[in-house]
């Protein structure tokens, strides 16, 4: 440290990788699964399947009718139309205390899907805040920030270490010695998608900037985050004072007509959802939002209408280069553009990111454990080695078991969401216990095999769910469900191949040899 730049970067790369690598692994792995959170949300709700798609106008009417009946006095309605990735209708409204309630509806009949499920959103919550509440347990957010910084630092120091970066791009010697092999794999996985790692980590920070770096909000808004966000995105449906009373009851302009008018401006099928503030009152305002998946952006066009006369109140027109840049960068992170081909590329690159971290830790162990000078040292490396199995293979087991849990837990179970999370955590904890008590040479094999088992079990569970069996969904063109099931089978096969091929060899101790950096 200090002195030689390359040496100090090698030190940083090694130790930051060890201490924050496991969190970074969790974030990359769950991030890869988050790419398909909509599809997994749909997969997790059996009652939504097997219906013919409905027109947007019909879905809109269904949503409006539901809200009129169930939340006539609410001060806010929101209706999200079905789309190809999530063909259900989502409505939300504010209850008397101002808390937001949400329901998932069959877009045809308006029947509520009462199933309580985390769905694919579980992986999103795990990805950006370790499934901890942002305000009550901010530690989750802070660990994610620290791991992101560690990832950026690992990329930079990795570049410094590997001056021969272009050569490493094509260098893989599978027949060489064990350490060489791991090093080559680590370099290959690290160098090829390096631009992706840098961009995805940077944009992840940019996407949630106001939480991670509140200094400018403290400097210019006295810390009033709400005021800032309302300035920057001009959230019309929020910019009324909460003590501003609702107006008198009044006949409202037909919602379907307003959406039609918005689409006449933005293009056919171009809107995604709308908000109504003070519905059914003489001060009602309807705001229609454009969809965001046909461009790289997070901030979208929207237009607000007077809910009684239908007069156009304002359009979201604020366009500054700064906002466009931020919108583009977060758009890159959320990967809603570019369709499913691009989303698969994101999944593969993120999985490579998880793998580069896992191989890095393995390399750390292999490089050092044979040279440990004391019993305490050998013990420490053995512990790191075991924890690495429990984190890397254990997460594959727990996430696949989580999918099985969503299929297996009874639909009417009380606190069902809580139990779904419990399944995930319990299985992961079991992986740690297993890693602690089983002989080291069996650990990788057994945990990878368990991961393969659960990954294949999930689509088998679908077989038992009426209407969701794989042959059935393929025949019916329910491609979202079919692809999730097929992806589980392929993933399970991959884990099984790894389980069959993985070999763990105890190292011969040669403490006499000097330890290199």
């Amino acid at each position: 440290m200090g002195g030689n730049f390359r040496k100090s970067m090698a030190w940083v790369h090694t130790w930051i990788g060890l201490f924050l690598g496991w969190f970074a692994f969790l974030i990359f792995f769950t991030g890869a699964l988050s790419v398909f959170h909509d599809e997994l949300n749909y997969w997790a709700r059996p009652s939504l399947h097997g219906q013919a798609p409905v027109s947007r106008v019909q879905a809109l009417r269904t949503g409006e009718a539901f809200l009129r009946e169930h939340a006539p006095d609410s001060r806010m309605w929101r209706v999200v139309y079905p789309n190809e990735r999530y063909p259900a209708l989502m409505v939300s409204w504010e209850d008397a205390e101002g808390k937001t309630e949400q329901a998932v509806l069959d877009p045809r009949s308006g029947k509520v899907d009462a199933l309580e499920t985390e769905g694919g959103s579980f992986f999103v919550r795990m990805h950006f805040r370790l499934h901890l509440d942002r305000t009550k347990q901010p530690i989750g957010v802070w660990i994610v920030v620290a791991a992101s910084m560690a990832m950026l630092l690992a990329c930079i120091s990795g570049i410094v270490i590997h001056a021969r970066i272009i050569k490493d791009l094509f260098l893989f010697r599978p027949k060489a010695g064990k350490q060489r092999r791991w090093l080559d794999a680590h370099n290959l996985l690290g160098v090829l998608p390096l631009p992706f790692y840098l961009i995805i980590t940077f944009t992840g920070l940019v996407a949630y900037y106001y939480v991670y770096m509140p200094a400018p909000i403290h400097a210019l808004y006295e810390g009033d985050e709400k005021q800032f966000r309302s300035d920057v995105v001009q959230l019309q449906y929020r910019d009324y004072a909460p003590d501003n009373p609702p107006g008198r009851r009044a006949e409202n302009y037909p919602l379907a007509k307003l959406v039609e008018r918005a689409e006449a401006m933005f293009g056919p099928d171009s809107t995604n959802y709308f908000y109504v503030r003070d519905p059914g009152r003489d001060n009602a305002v309807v705001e229609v939002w454009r969809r965001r998946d046909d461009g790289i952006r997070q901030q979208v066009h929207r237009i607000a209408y007077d809910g009684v006369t239908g007069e156009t109140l304002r359009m979201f027109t604020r366009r500054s280069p700064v906002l466009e840049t931020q919108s583009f960068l977060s758009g890159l992170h959320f990967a809603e553009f570019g369709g499913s081909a691009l989303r698969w590329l994101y999944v593969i690159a993120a999985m490579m990111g998880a793998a580069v971290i896992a191989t890095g830790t393995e390399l750390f162990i292999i490089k050092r454990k044979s040279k440990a000078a004391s019993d305490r040292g050998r013990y420490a490396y053995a512990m790191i080695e075991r924890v690495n199995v429990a984190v890397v293979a254990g997460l594959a087991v727990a996430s696949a078991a989580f999918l099985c849990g969503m299929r297996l837990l009874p639909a009417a179970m009380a606190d069902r969401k809580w139990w779904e999370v419990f399944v995930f955590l319990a299985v992961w904890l079991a992986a740690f216990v297993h890693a602690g008590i089983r002989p080291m040479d069996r650990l990788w094999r057994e945990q990878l095999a368990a991961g393969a088992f659960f990954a294949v079990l999930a689509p088998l569970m679908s077989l038992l769910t009426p209407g969701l069996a794989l042959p059935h969904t393929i025949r019916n063109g329910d491609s979202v469900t079919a692809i999730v099931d097929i992806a589980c089978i392929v993933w399970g096969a991959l884990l099984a191949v790894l389980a069959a091929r993985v070999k763990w060899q105890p190292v011969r101790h040669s403490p006499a040899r000097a330890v290199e950096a």
Partner: protein
Amino acid sequence: MPSLLQPIDRRRAFDIAVRCLTAIFGGYFVTYAAMFALARLLPLTRADAVLLTSMLAFLLAPALLVWIFAARSTGRMLVLLALGTGLCAAVAAWAG
């Protein structure tokens, strides 16, 4: 390079501890101070100034972290960080 749990010399251990603590807390603190000051300096609308400085923070922070670990002298690195933070505070007070 010492291996895990091998005895390492005491001065080096102290140096490593100081740099790690500086990286974890100091890195964030200095970035915070710099962005606080910069947000007040930029001739932009309030919202734009917040957005731009937030994004720059994620470029400044990793650069700072690299320097915290690579700087030749730990003492000089600490002094420069403290001076930098003081400068940012002065600028923020003057511009606010």
